[in-house]
């Protein structure tokens, strides 16, 4: 019973982290039909920057967000304008895989070159701390990561729903030509959308660095599960990705009890296959995702 409760708590916290890490990935696809293999590489890049910041200055890694979020936003806009927008629209999805694959390899190589392949972990005074909630332990670092996820996803949701930029972005997602007809500069909006996705990678990477050991090739372990999440959630839908992340994170955590780690991990891929067979537009995507 105690184990079940503990696993539920861990599952919720894990689901929150997954949602944050997958949010950017689904946004790129929503805005531009871009499959961004390099998203997890940018997560690891942000994690390394947070580690580097903390190990040189001794200040809490969360403070590094002040610099990395704007930096990643600018990087994202630049990447979209200088690289992605040059791809031919007809083959954009396929070519973006190749392009971002090479970006991922470049980031991995540079990280190895600059920081070496040594595995790093941010040493936090509160790294092993936890408090008890109804008999289950809640780790402080995991709760912070969950909090970052909740705040950023809520912020992203409000930005898309409430602001004029959000309307323009959603219009670009839904029908680029019509958006252009009503006077939206879709090129610029797409650039900002991409920057926004990469800004979530800065937050996600920092959240990841709080509670894991990082090394340059770690991103290959993340991209598969994250891709599975956005397909199950419906490509392009941020609420869908968040719900799918929560369901898969919780499922993984609970299945661990009877099945063990190896089989619990396959849950992601079982969910992926089931989604593609039964409901290829994703379970939570709704109208938006059905267009793809």
């Amino acid at each position: 019973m105690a184990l079940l409760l503990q696993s539920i708590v861990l599952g919720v916290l894990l689901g929150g982290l997954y949602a944050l890490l997958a949010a950017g990935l689904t946004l790129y696809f929503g805005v531009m039909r871009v499959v961004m293999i390099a998203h997890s590489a940018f997560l690891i890049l942000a994690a390394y920057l947070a580690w580097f910041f903390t190990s040189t200055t001794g200040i809490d890694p969360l403070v590094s967000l002040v610099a990395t979020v704007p930096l990643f936003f600018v990087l994202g806009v630049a990447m979209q304008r200088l690289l992605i927008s040059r791809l031919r629209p007809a083959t954009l999805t396929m070519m973006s895989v190749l392009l971002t694959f090479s970006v991922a390899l470049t980031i991995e190589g540079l990280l190895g070159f600059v920081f070496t392949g040594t595995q790093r972990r941010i040493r936090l005074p509160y790294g092993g701390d936890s408090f008890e909630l109804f008999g289950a332990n809640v780790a402080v670092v995991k709760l912070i990561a969950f909090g970052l996820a909740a705040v950023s996803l809520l912020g992203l949701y409000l930005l898309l729903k409430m602001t004029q930029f959000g309307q323009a972005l959603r219009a670009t997602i839904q029908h680029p030509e019509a958006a252009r007809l009503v006077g939206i500069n879709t090129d610029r909006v797409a650039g900002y959308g991409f920057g926004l996705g990469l800004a979530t990678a800065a937050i996600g990477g920092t959240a990841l660095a709080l509670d894991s050991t990082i090394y340059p090739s770690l991103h290959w372990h993340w991209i598969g599960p994250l891709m599975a999440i956005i397909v199950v959630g419906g490509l392009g839908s941020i609420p869908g990705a968040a719900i799918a992340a929560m369901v898969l994170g919780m499922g993984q955590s609970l299945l661990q009890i009877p099945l063990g780690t190896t089989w619990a991990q396959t849950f992601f891929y079982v969910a992926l296959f089931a989604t593609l067979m039964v409901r290829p537009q994703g379970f939570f995507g709704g109208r938006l995702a059905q267009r793809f």
Partner: protein
Amino acid sequence: MKSRTTTPVRIVALAAASCLTLTGCLSSGSGSEAEGGDDDTITIGISLPLTGDFSEPGKGVQRGYEAWADWTNENGGLLGKDVELIVLDDQSNADRVASDYEKLINQDGVDLVFGPFSTRLVVPAAQVAQDYGFLFVEPAGAAEEVFTQGFDNLFYAAPAVANDHYDYLADHLEEMPAAERPKTAAFASMDDPFAMGTAYGLRDRLDEMGVDVVVDEVYPPNTTDFGSIAAKIADSDADLVVGGTQYQDAVNLIVALQQLDYQPRMAAFSTAPTNPEFPEAIGDKTEGIISPTGYTPEASYDSNKEFVDYYTEKNGNPPAEDEANAWTTGQVVAAAVEAVGCADADPDCQQQLIDWLRENEVDTVVGPLSWDAEGRPQGAHLIQQYVDGAIRIVLPEEAKEADLVLDKPDW
């Protein structure tokens, strides 16, 4: 509609597959050395994972081999001849390592070969060496499956195979009165022949002593979340927790256990705690953590001090286990060559070297080594523990730097 949704996923898979193929096809481009038949040099062929998954330990082994070759040449060479190394990069790829040794033996005409790093690469490499009748001494292939392939040319140049790493600890627990031993034990191991071997060697010994194994988890190498495994272990409240671990998994698991406020009486993890990065990552919560180690620069064996001084002067830092095992490989082969008096590709010479090593003991930087018929070294690993903030040898009694702390302080 359906096919368009699946497209990105299929593309991802295709991209991953083509990338793997590409990496496999790239050539290392370092083969244009002169033929090794030269009379006043002895050429030694080696393939190492200098890029890819095992690049970090692979480079460590390379540093060890190069230090050994330089030292040998500065000290009169081997049979009075200079030693020259030909090092190829196998990119951590098991297919590639076999063709590398084919090339070294056939095209480069090397006189001797040294082994690569890690079980996965040692097995295919040893097969090639066996086919050509070459002696095959290797620095890193400790898992049981290395010794069950029927190789009669293989010798592992380290104190113990994976399953024997915890022998001194198991002996110590066995000597304790049954009432004082841990009652329950939890095991978590990476799905990797070496890591599992270390944990299961101890598990089987504890099982014989009547210790109850309450958790026995295996996780794949790509596991990113250790919360659930930690929850299972914490829920069992085992007296002893053992991790069959490499590096990052051990660190992640230990922190996850601390987060769940699980306080075992004893905690033992392979590999990670002896890494200098480990206290950096865990902070002041390392106290009492136990780890087996095949090498420490402090060891008092005769040739070790010479090795540590030479290596430290050359590289600016003391050697670690990978470097030491590479050096040991050099020492073992050199001992056989000097005793037999030959070093060339001729099968008779290689067979004499093999026969000599079967019969004799060699003094090395990790202590005196001798082998059984399958090439298993007949020793055990030193047991180290974090005592008063530093990692020290605690077992066996005759080598200890500090007393074993049986009840680990809270972490």
